[in-house]
């Protein structure tokens, strides 16, 4: 329950911090921290326009996407505080339930018969297919290190009595941060602010969503951010501190992460489209290095 409250709490300021950081670096004053949520609230009240070529699939796509992200957030623990759902192998379910949302969003993009949205859908399917192994290898190596296979047990035992855990935690945090960027389609894989449809990934998929549907897709995207950053925070925060300290560290880490994304998006250019696959594969390679590190630590090699 605690983790859910923390997720909601950080979701309030997370998108605002990104926007604020970017504004600061470009020398503007920028909107208030709550502006992104205000925009979403306005979208939720608006009417919708549906493409004449769309069918029922387009109508159910966005609600299923949000539902899967909400359900996935019930799996995120906060260290020794149990998540609402926790069982052996729950990270497999976590990844696959997000897959359901992605599947529905991709097919809703294909439903409007636009070449641009088809392109975005295709890229989303391709990149997430390449990214998935990194997530599983990462969690697999954490499972190997701790001997457990649920999020809660993994994170509760990660820092138990071993200095090596910090090496692992740092690599794991790095891989998770990269996964977050790919999953939520931020720089360097995709630039959400680009105005050329040919080079977009996620944003071009939802071009024809409007009103309520667009609003819930944005909510889901913001939540997805928090889910993955909660996972990296879980890797990094040491357990020896007391609960209030850890909550404080977590919330400030989220601010730092959001500011980091804002900083990255202000100073870095997007990858060339053709280089994205290589970039994602290099993240996979880091994950593979992690599993070999774990094997060495566990005296398997």
């Amino acid at each position: 329950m605690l983790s859910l409250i923390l997720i909601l709490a950080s979701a309030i300021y997370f998108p605002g911090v990104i926007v604020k950081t970017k504004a600061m670096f470009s020398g503007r004053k920028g909107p208030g921290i709550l502006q992104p949520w205000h925009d979403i609230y306005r979208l939720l009240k608006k009417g919708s326009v549906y493409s004449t070529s769309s069918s029922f699939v387009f109508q159910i796509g966005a609600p299923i996407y949000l539902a899967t992200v909400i359900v996935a957030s019930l799996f995120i623990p906060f260290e020794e505080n149990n998540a609402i759902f926790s069982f052996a192998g729950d990270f497999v379910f976590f990844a696959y339930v997000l897959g359901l949302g992605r599947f529905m969003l991709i097919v809703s993009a294909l439903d409007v018969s636009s070449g641009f949205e088809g392109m975005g859908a295709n890229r989303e399917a391709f990149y997430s297919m390449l990214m998935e192994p990194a997530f599983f290898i990462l969690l697999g190596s954490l499972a190997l290190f701790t001997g457990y296979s649920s999020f809660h047990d993994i994170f509760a035992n990660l820092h138990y009595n071993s200095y090596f855990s910090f090496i692992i935690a740092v690599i794991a945090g790095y891989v998770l941060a990269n996964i977050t960027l790919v999953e939520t389609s931020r720089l360097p894989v995709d630039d959400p602010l680009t105005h050329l449809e040919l080079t977009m990934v996620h944003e071009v998929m939802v071009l024809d969503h409007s009103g309520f549907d667009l609003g819930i897709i944005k909510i889901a995207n913001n939540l997805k951010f928090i889910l993955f950053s909660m996972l990296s925070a879980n890797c990094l925060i040491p357990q020896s501190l007391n609960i209030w300290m850890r909550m404080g560290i977590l919330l400030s880490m989220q601010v730092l992460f959001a500011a980091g994304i804002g900083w990255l998006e202000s100073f870095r250019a997007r990858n060339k489209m053709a280089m994205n696959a290589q970039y994602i594969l290099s993240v996979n390679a880091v994950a593979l290095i992690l599993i070999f590190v774990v094997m060495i630590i566990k005296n398997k090699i």
Partner: protein
Amino acid sequence: MTVVLFKIALLLSFGMFFIPKNIKYIFGLSLHLILIAASTRWAWHVLNHDTLTIALGVTTWSGEITLVIDQLSAYFMLIINLICFCGVLYAGGYLKPYLPKKRSVFISLHLFSLLWLHGAMLLVISIQDGIAFLLAWELMSLFSFILVIFEAQKEATLKTGINYLLQMHLGFALIMLGFLIAANQTGELSFEGVRQFFSHSNNIPLFLVFFAGFGIKAGFIPFHSWLPRAHPAAPSHVSGIMSGVMIKMGIYGIFRISLLLQYDLKAIGIIVLAAGIVSGLLGVIMAIMQHDLKKLLAYHSIENIGIIGIGIGIGLLGKANGSSYLMVLGLGGALLHTLNHALFKSLLFFTAGNVFYSVHKINMDHLGGLAKNMRYTSIAFLIGALAISGIPPFNGFISEFLIYNGILNQMSDSVFSYSILSVVSLLSLVLIGGLCIYCFTKAFGLSFLGSRRQEHSHPVKEVPVIMLVPAFILIGCMLAIGLVPAFFVNQVAGVLQSLTHTTITIEPLLNSLKSISYVNITLIAVLVVIAALRAWQQSSVKVSEGPTWGCGYTAGDFRHQYTPTSYADSLRELADPVIHYKRVYKSFEENEIFPPPKTFHTESKDLVEEKTILSWVHLIVNHLPKAGIAQSGLINHYLIYPLLFLVLIGFLIVLNIL
């Protein structure tokens, strides 16, 4: 009593040829129902009590045939009955347009073969004796051949059918060879003989012979090449039954043999695991490159057989390690995936058949926009696509979850080689899952959604109810497995427990599965809440329709949509080593001022088949004409040949070689 019913149903089937055309289908359906009733009663008895031995009362030269139905047979029996029932029900609608066109005897032959295929499969899984087993196996191949060539007036179909028949006989020969090797040592031509052989000789060679033989039926790569040919050529109810249950007879065989193994389990487990990984990955990569919807589904059967192979491999490694929990995760996952694949693959073939029935086209380049006219078909296909991609809350996830758990469990084993194996299997299973989502967003999105890519000469309508009923029966079963997985996994564990005579505790697994049911129910509840909120919001605001946003370009039409070729293009480089992918087009000349209309299409070739089978065949075919020298056409030459033969024999005897 039930045996008599079983035999009566098979005997009465000959009556099919003598009754009027319009009641043939009803007659066939009732015979199927008799078969189903009889065999389900056996299976029920076995699952609740003990192994059943029934004398069939038919004698071959090896003695009287007895049916020995144990838990494994019972499990497969229930799968066969469910899928055959749905398939035959579906055939009622699918065959209707053919009835006036086809001659009565062809319809009779088709329905007759459908019944006998059902009967032969039931016999295959319940016979332990070698010769009778091979007879039933042969019956199954022959009748499925007749079913495949239903449209034999097309030359391509007939050719495909003969290809299928040849490959099946290669498999038959290998299985027979396996039984004979065992019988040569033990004097017993049966599964019992194989077991005795395994208990005192090297297990690996004989297992490999059986694995190749059964693998041809199951479609493990490189024995897969009949699948992508036969499935598109066959009518859809036949593809559904063949892909749903007939290829599972190969899996049944591999299971049977695996359970008899005594030694070298580790090596054999690794072999099966490797075969599974290769089939799974290559199958799905080849599937993505296909344009023909049914061919795509056929390649997915290969992929799913691969997943089952991974499960069996993990299970055998668990058995080798003496870990019964790992064995249940692996073998149980494989068994459950057999059921799951039967459910969603026949569902997908039936819905693909619906598309063909209404549109008369099956190439994805010509489809699109069907969801608006064929609503129920597209819902059914979408659910099938989600299930085959292993996405919760459907059944495909459950079996993959078991296999994942097996892999994770094995990873923490203290031996390095096991850990590496599990990393490799984890990677490939994840990749298979990701590629499967890629492939099915393509298959569903491009054939059912968007706007149509080609004008059809007739209005596209939803199919008759009788063709939708089987699809929704299957969906019901899939949801049941997805929502109450603990019950089904418990049944499968029970089957394994009785087969291996060990007590297995799977409490931790069952707890996980119970949580999964809660999560799935939560997922549905959350979805309902969001949908209700959305409906409430939509009722209070202005909702309108408009053209798709063309990014400023207003003259966009259906030709600007993504096509199957362009969707698969991202994967071209990855797929090129296994499927040679060629773009066929003529580029613009430098001084072409008024260019004529140009065409562009892509071609793909199955390189695995090319390298492993066709290259040898071509070699032989190229060199055979040289033997034609001997065929001179002169009678005196032909008279010399026997003389030369006798001289040769004489020499051999003199030299004491013969």
